[in-house]
């Protein structure tokens, strides 16, 4: 167990190091002078030279990467070249918005996908099942940028049900979270459906019915728990990779989260912030993997004992 954890830890560290390396070198390959970006087009050669010296821009890339790692090891993500704000601080102040948006979206899509997945499996090939299949396919094929914009326009602007800015509470996040959840809900309803169909044919479901279990208990306790085993893995990966969707939704709805920070940093060509947001999302993916592994052992006892 200890060696497994240790191996896991090393693998995670190597992954993050790899991400840092790739991002750093890719950023370096971007054409243009960072100093010009920082100081502006009209800056004098002296200023540019000072900036080069200050940020070690003339050092060999290996040396600069080493410097960056050393700084990381001290828990310092550096400062923005543009605003001079500490990158860690920028991420932390924006984290609550992004976390709330993501959590709300995950809860929404799971809460909708589970009952639809279970009931379409129970009544498969019924008119209900087919309608849900059509709807699910629709949510999967509609371009999300269009859908998010439409929701914003109709529900926020035209009908005025949701605020278009100045988000203060959880409730204000409902519309952006719904726009994010729709990207996943159809896929998850079908995923749960497929797993449920398989599980419903299994002998232990028949045995639970033979013991006098009610349909609700048989479906949502005996069958669903087993059908969720493969779903949890995919859910873990999707939650980890959610930042891609968040990035987009936050920009459409002008939410002050990590997604907008990441996009701004790219437009500003602000390497420390780009590095910081990329490393942050990589850490999320690695962390989500850990959580999925732990959850897996809990949801499927056969894995814990390694059989």
């Amino acid at each position, binding site marked *: 167990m200890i060696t497994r954890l240790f191996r896991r830890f090393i693998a995670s560290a190597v992954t993050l190091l790899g991400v840092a390396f790739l991002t750093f070198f890719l950023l370096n390959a971007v054409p243009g002078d960072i100093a010009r970006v920082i100081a502006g087009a009209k800056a004098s050669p002296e200023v540019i030279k000072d900036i080069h010296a200050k940020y070690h821009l003339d050092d060999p890339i290996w040396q600069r990467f080493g410097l960056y790692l050393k700084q990381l090891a001290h828990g310092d993500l550096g400062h923005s070249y543009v605003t001079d704000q500490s990158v860690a601080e920028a991420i932390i102040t924006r984290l609550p918005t992004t976390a709330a948006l993501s959590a709300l979206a995950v809860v929404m899509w799971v809460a909708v996908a589970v009952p639809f997945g279970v009931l379409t499996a129970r009544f498969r090939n019924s008119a209900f099942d087919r309608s849900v299949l059509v709807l699910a396919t629709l949510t999967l094929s509609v371009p999300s940028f269009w859908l998010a914009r439409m929701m914003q326009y109709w529900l926020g602007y035209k009908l005025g049900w949701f605020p278009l800015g100045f988000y203060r509470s959880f409730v204000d996040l409902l519309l952006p979270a719904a726009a994010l959840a729709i990207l996943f809900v159809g896929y998850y309803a079908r995923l749960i459906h497929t797993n449920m169909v398989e599980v419903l044919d299994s*002998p*232990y479901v028949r045995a*639970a019915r033979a013991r*006098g*279990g009610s*349909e609700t208990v048989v479906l949502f306790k005996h069958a669903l728990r087993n059908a969720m085993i493969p779903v949890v893995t995919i859910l873990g990966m999707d939650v980890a990779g959610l930042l891609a969707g968040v990035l987009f939704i936050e920009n459409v709805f002008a939410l002050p989260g990590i997604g907008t920070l990441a996009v701004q940093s790219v437009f500003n060509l602000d390497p420390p912030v780009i590095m910081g947001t990329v490393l942050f999302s990589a850490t999320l993916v690695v962390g989500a993997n850990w959580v999925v592994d732990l959850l897996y052992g809990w949801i499927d006892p056969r894995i814990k004992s390694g059989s």
Partner: protein
Amino acid sequence: MPLLEIRNLQIEFGRGPKALRAVDGVSLTLEPGKTLCVVGESGSGKSVTALSIARLLASPPAVYAGGEILLAGRDVLRMSPAELRQIRGGVVSYVFQEAGASLNPVFRIGNQIKEALRWHRPQAATDAEVIRLLKLVGIPAPESRMCCYPHELSGGMQQRVMIAIALAPQPKLLVADEPTTALDVTIQAQIIELLSDLRHQLGMAILLITHNLGIVGDIADDVAVMYAGQIVETAPVRELLQRPLHPYTRALMNSVPVLDSAGGRLATIAGAVPRLGAFPGGCRFHPRCPLARPDCSQTAPPLVEVELRRWVRCPYWNSPALKA
């Protein structure tokens, strides 16, 4: 009053002209506390019959096309879903073939037993009762075993747990559908012995479904032999084993391996069980029957009581060729 009385049961799969009749006019009677074995090859309709007693066949595709299933005097085929939930477990409990697959892999066995108790005897849903039941089915160290997951137990232990779950609601009838098929021979004998003990101890009736005539003698009071969706012979066990009347029963008996037989090849029944929907006309066994006559393919023989409590579906049961 018999505990279970199946009258002229017809079960079909699908509807309309394409419907396939898997069970065709089966009648069975089981008195309280007795054991009835239903014997037949795969595809004979014996499991379908067994599952229909608590209406466990998925419907659709299964259709209960006719007949009655009287369980303690009430027709199961007319029960509401709520009544069905009461009798499932409460009156009739099931033990299935693959215990490993019939136990839910993600719940501890103690909790699975407790759940059956909660559904039918809520006041008894305690650890103490779970331990008592595990002891009853012969599981050593029940206090620690109740925290095991199914995959942590051997096949024989899993089947004992299944039996404990089946016994938890104190049913009047235990339906065991091929309970030993997935187990090796020594464990098979232990499970049959356990079922036999429990029947005497608890006074419940057992309906045992098996394809193995070899285990019938150890436990049954009566035997019904099924072939292609019909009963071909019923008799008290001793008489059936000593003097089988139907050619199919005789062929089945010949194919049971015997320890002290002097070498030789094991007898088999030529051909295969006809596929559902492709049952031959006339007597359904005639293509495989060594004694078939030309008219066997023409007229379907009825099930006739030829001696007291001995029913046979063969008009030539008494012919000299069969006795030889």
